[in-house]
């Protein structure tokens, strides 16, 4: 596929013969996902990088206009597949905001917990893979092994390991059982040990630090101009965190700190993510201790939630409600309104611009994908670096191609 290189006005035309053009990807082990970079090189120095994306474009937003609000949760799962529950929390956060549903306190806590588990899972992969790309294989194995425990929790709570599809309009699919909370307890015991191991392996690892420090520097002004958010913006000194600054769900009940750095290089981003995992564990600990009892879904009289099996087969109202929700052209009414709602995703602001037209099928489900917004920083950050720095910068941006291309 031909890709036009942008003209560099400061580079003389006759000198361009000495420049190499190198294709990086779309299938390259160090990109981890399906994306392509067209690099213009002088020796090993990158003069210009042009990302070419869209290899995984599968029309998720078009699908969102043809699936109902509950069905679409299975599709949002597949956007950032490293942390699916966070996508679900973000999606139903937008849906419930538009429908003006106040979910139960227990459900809020459960959603906070699955969201924080997803954040830890995402950061473990991101920090682990950053180490892997720079040659520190052991740290990656520690991190990846721990993610299995998170998958076990997903499996225990929903029955699915990878894409739980756990949230529903007005609640969640199943309530947390003691086995789920028991698994989270166990996970919270294991996590600090693994983080300590990774710390021992990486924090004083000279090769790792030399390849991260001062590489891919993003200034605070650039972070704001390029719409960066999440850990990437926080590593550059933009101390904005939606959990603190615009508290949603039950985040105002918890004590936690927002880690940030001012250097803005890959090393700062790595450290911010490592510290965020510690803070997420703090939130999980408090949420487990304070988990309220009571119903997990809003009452079925509100016409929104899917009744559980016992209610469906044991009561008239449950049966009617189930019938209403599963039959096409029935179900609840939505307002003819539009709303933007965002949550703090693992890699930044994860928002939905949701437009409803009165039916259960959304009119427009625009996603604000953090990976897409962050990847346009890449040419800016990689300029005048060496080829070997690509993996460090790409790893620190945490690009997930399924979310990038949707």
């Amino acid at each position, binding site marked *: 596929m031909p890709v036009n290189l942008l003209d560099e006005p400061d580079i003389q035309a006759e000198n361009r013969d000495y420049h190499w053009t190198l294709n990086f990807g779309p299938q390259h082990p160090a990109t981890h996902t399906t994306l392509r970079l067209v690099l213009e090189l002088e020796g090993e120095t990158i003069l210009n990088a042009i990302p070419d*994306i869209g290899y995984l474009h599968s029309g998720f937003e078009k699908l969102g206009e043809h699936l109902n609000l509950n069905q679409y949760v299975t599709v949002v799962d597949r956007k950032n597949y490293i942390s699916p529950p966070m996508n679900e929390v973000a999606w139903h956060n937008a849906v419930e905001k538009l429908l003006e*549903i*106040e979910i139960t306190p227990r459900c809020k806590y459960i959603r906070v917990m699955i969201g924080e588990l997803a954040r830890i899972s995402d950061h473990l992969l991101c920090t682990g893979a950053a180490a892997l790309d720079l040659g520190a294989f052991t740290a990656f194995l520690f991190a990846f092994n721990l993610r299995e425990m998170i998958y076990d929790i997903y499996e225990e709570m929903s029955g699915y390991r990878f894409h739980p599809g756990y949230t529903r309009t007005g609640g969640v699919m199943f309530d947390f059982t003691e086995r789920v909370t028991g698994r989270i307890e166990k996970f919270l015991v294991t996590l600090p040990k693994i983080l300590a191991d990774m710390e021992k392996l990486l924090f004083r690892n000279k090769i790792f630090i030399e390849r991260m420090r001062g590489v891919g520097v993003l200034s605070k002004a650039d972070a704001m101009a390029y719409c*960066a958010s999440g850990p990437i913006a926080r590593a550059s000194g933009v101390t904005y965190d939606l959990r603190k600054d615009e508290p949603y769900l039950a985040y105002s009940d918890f004590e936690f700190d927002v880690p940030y750095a001012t250097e803005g290089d890959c090393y700062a981003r790595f450290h911010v993510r490592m510290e965020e995992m510690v803070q997420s564990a703090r939130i999980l600990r408090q949420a487990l201790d304070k988990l309220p009892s009571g119903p997990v879904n809003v009452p079925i009289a509100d016409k929104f939630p899917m009744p559980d099996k016992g209610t469906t087969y044991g009561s008239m109202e449950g049966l009617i409600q189930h019938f209403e929700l599963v039959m096409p052209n029935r179900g609840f009414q939505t307002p*003819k309104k539009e*709303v933007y*709602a965002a949550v703090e995703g693992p890699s930044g602001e994860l928002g939905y611009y949701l437009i409803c037209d009165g039916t259960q099928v959304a009119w*427009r489900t625009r996603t*604000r994908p953090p990976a897409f917004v962050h990847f*346009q920083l890449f040419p800016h950050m990689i300029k005048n670096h060496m080829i070997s720095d690509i993996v460090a910068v790409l790893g620190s941006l945490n690009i997930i191609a399924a979310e990038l291309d949707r």
Partner: protein
Amino acid sequence: MTTKQTSKPLPDATLARIRKRCGEGVFSVSSHLDNLRLYVPGSKLVELATILRDEFGFHLTELGGADYLGYPGRSPASHRFEVHYVLLNYDTAERLILKSGVSDPDPTLPTLVPVWLGAGWMEREVFDMYGIVFQGHPDLRRILMPEEFQSFPLRKDYPLRGRGERHNFERVTREDS
């Protein structure tokens, strides 16, 4: 049921200040829950965005489009497409949504790349999906769909399924590639 607050609604004071600074008739206001939307004509968009950035500290966080073709209860006089720009003030946590409408024969809006560099790819995506042209954009190419693609897939008159697009592509075999 009570309304859930996920972000603070913009205080009236800020809105009044914006009104005072820009003058009457530049934008019209509508709101739903905590979302405050300013409808701006394309000709005033860059001016308003620059004022909001320089004097009110707002920064772009989200940009996307929507096609309202056949939206129930929509007056025929309103624009077919609308582009939304979600702005955020990092210091006060205020959010503001700019909306600008365009219609079919000439769906053109000025680009916001000179104001916020991050608008670049998001405008490219809106162009790719809806065919809205952002005038002055430094690099307005398709971003998700292939370059030789002819249609705009998120328009409402583009079907979800059916035969078609695959057959428009030239078939390349291993021998002639």
